[in-house]
């Protein structure tokens, strides 16, 4: 009988139109990801520039040679207007070496290089290339310094330019992470944490929305009374709805995440090998994250079902999911900007009480080997889900589901 109910629920939730809709969203993300390209590729790609060299001296020639080696030169000449025209279409910048470049450097006077930026837009990816040009100028400046030092009798130019090497050791929650800077750590953790948060959001939107809609449809189609008089335990009806929503949610989230991973891939950067080794997650860790996502999903679905009980019809059910999404957004924003341990006590309590917070924090906690908090999180979310399912089952056994809200009886 349970399978009969489950099959009916899945048939109701996993319709062709709902799958096509989520697949279309996934495809859209994938296309956006493909069209904006990869940030790492952008950074490692040779920049396309134009060079206007008005200086015929040795430093002017040196700079031109260096730039030619490390970039794709679209224009070399002495006319700024022509240079701008040449790089306007596909170049990043036009570098102009002034007439007195060599003369000033040789006489110990600081000189300048004019950079005409060809900014294509104000998006994140549009500004990546300007960072590459800045690195180019930094490299060029070092080469001039080395030449000057050699002329003044310095042998170990690399040493003089960089006499101190930074060695990072980061302490996080008492754990020592060697050869890792906080920035490297965040670059590694952020995409994974972000991904977990997005998965949770998607699961709640799809699975929670499905179960609320299912309740709304039962009421709108007037099928609930028939279902409740079938020879099946009410708890089986409740559990079939929850399980069907969980299965449908996982399928839809998986389809969605394929596209979203392409999108996120555009912004991901490979961190140093040392960083990954230090905080690498094991198969067991991912298993724990999986359990935590599932228990949180059960919490979300059972809350949705409870909200669905109060819906009048399909239309009113649609708006019932908003408070749940708001809770998930709250958890995501709080954990995105602050670590749980550094939150004020009141905010800590509120954030902890929201079951969706736990999987969002799981990746970070596992990266610092904090397995204890993960087990507590699993215990909390499981208990929360059990209590919520019991409450929903109680409502299914009460008159409330049939007659709606009534005024309390005066005695």
């Amino acid at each position: 009988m349970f399978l009969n109910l489950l099959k009916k629920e899945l048939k109701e939730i996993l319709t062709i139109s709902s799958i096509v809709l989520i697949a279309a969203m996934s495809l859209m993300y994938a296309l956006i990801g493909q069209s904006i390209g990869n940030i790492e590729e952008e950074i490692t790609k040779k920049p396309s520039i134009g060079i206007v060299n008005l200086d015929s001296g040795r430093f002017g020639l040196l700079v031109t040679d260096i730039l030619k080696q490390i970039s794709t030169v679209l224009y070399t000449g002495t006319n700024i207007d022509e240079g701008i025209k040449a790089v306007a279409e596909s170049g990043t910048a036009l570098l102009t070496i002034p007439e007195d470049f060599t003369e000033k450097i040789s006489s110990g006077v600081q000189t300048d290089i004019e950079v005409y930026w060809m900014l294509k837009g104000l998006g994140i990816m549009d500004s990546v290339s300007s960072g590459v040009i800045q690195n180019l100028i930094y490299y060029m400046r070092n080469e001039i310094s080395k030449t000057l030092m050699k002329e003044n009798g310095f042998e170990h130019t690399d040493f003089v330019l960089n006499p101190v090497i930074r060695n990072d050791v980061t302490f996080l929650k008492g754990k020592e992470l060697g050869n890792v800077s906080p920035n490297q750590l965040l670059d590694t953790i952020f995409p994974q944490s972000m991904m977990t948060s997005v998965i949770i959001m998607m699961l709640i939107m799809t699975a929670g929305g499905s179960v609320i809609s299912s309740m709304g449809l039962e009421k709108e189609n007037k099928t609930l009374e028939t279902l409740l008089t079938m020879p099946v335990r009410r708890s089986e009806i409740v559990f079939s709805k929850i399980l069907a929503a969980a299965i449908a949610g996982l399928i839809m989230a998986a389809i969605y995440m394929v596209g979203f991973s392409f999108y996120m891939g555009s912004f991901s950067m490979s961190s140093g090998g040392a960083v990954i080794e230090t905080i690498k997650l094991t198969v067991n860790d991912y298993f724990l994250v999986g359990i935590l996502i599932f228990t949180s999903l059960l919490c979300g679905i059972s809350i949705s079902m409870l909200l669905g009980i109060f819906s009048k019809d399909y239309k009113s059910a649609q708006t019932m999911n908003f408070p749940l999404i708001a809770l998930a957004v709250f958890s995501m924003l709080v954990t995105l900007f602050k670590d749980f341990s550094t939150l004020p006590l009141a905010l800590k309590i509120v954030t902890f009480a929201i079951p969706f917070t736990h999987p969002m924090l799981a990746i970070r906690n596992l990266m610092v080997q904090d397995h204890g908090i993960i087990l507590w999180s699993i215990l909390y979310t499981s208990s929360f889900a059990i209590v919520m399912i019991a409450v929903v089952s109680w409502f299914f056994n009460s008159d409330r589901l049939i007659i709606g809200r009534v005024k309390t009886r005066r005695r």
Partner: protein
Amino acid sequence: MAVVEINNLKKFYGTLEAVKGISFVIQKGEIFGLIGPNGAGKTTTLRVISTLLKPTSGDVKVFGYNVVTEPEKIRRFISYLPEDAGAYKNLTGMDFLTFIGRFFANGEELTKMVNKGVEIANLGDRIRDKISSYSKGMMRRLLVARALMTGPRLAILDEPTSGLDVLNAQEVRKIIKDSVKSGVTVLLSSHNMLEVEFLCDKIALINNGVIVESGTPSELMKKYNSQNIEEVFTEVIKCS
């Protein structure tokens, strides 16, 4: 043993007393009609008997099982058709009957049950169409078929011909009458007095949560010196 035994049933919705201590008994093989004006407490009574609502007080037994303590046992023997019932619109009529049938049988027995449902519904090839494309009459026939195909020992039908045209209503009445021959006991509510007179072996008139009169249609017509149940109904309601 009586099929349904109700003793001093009361049901409150918050402060509103919908049913005010009613009592009646339904015997096996009877078609028992519960009739009364809108808001009299008919649907509430039917919902209590079909284990959807719990009584505030009083004793309600179906086949000797208490509706409060043994609802799951009762659900094995009953079939309830609500007045404004619907069906899953994403399913075909056939799928819907199969879905319901699976709660009661499987294998060959299920096939027989569904075939019986198809026969009762009498929708022809439309039984394989999506329910969303059905007219109100087709939907009601499907629901009556759903309620009777499982061979319930007690069929609780709330306004079984509600919204049907004359021909469809007549067909449904015939189906109900025939089902009794196969051992089904029927409890129905109706506004249609002709229907009640035609179908019911016994009737109870309920008004404002109280049973104001009960008996066989002929007994009541004799008692009130009336030509039909409609006149009895008008007289009783006027006096109560």
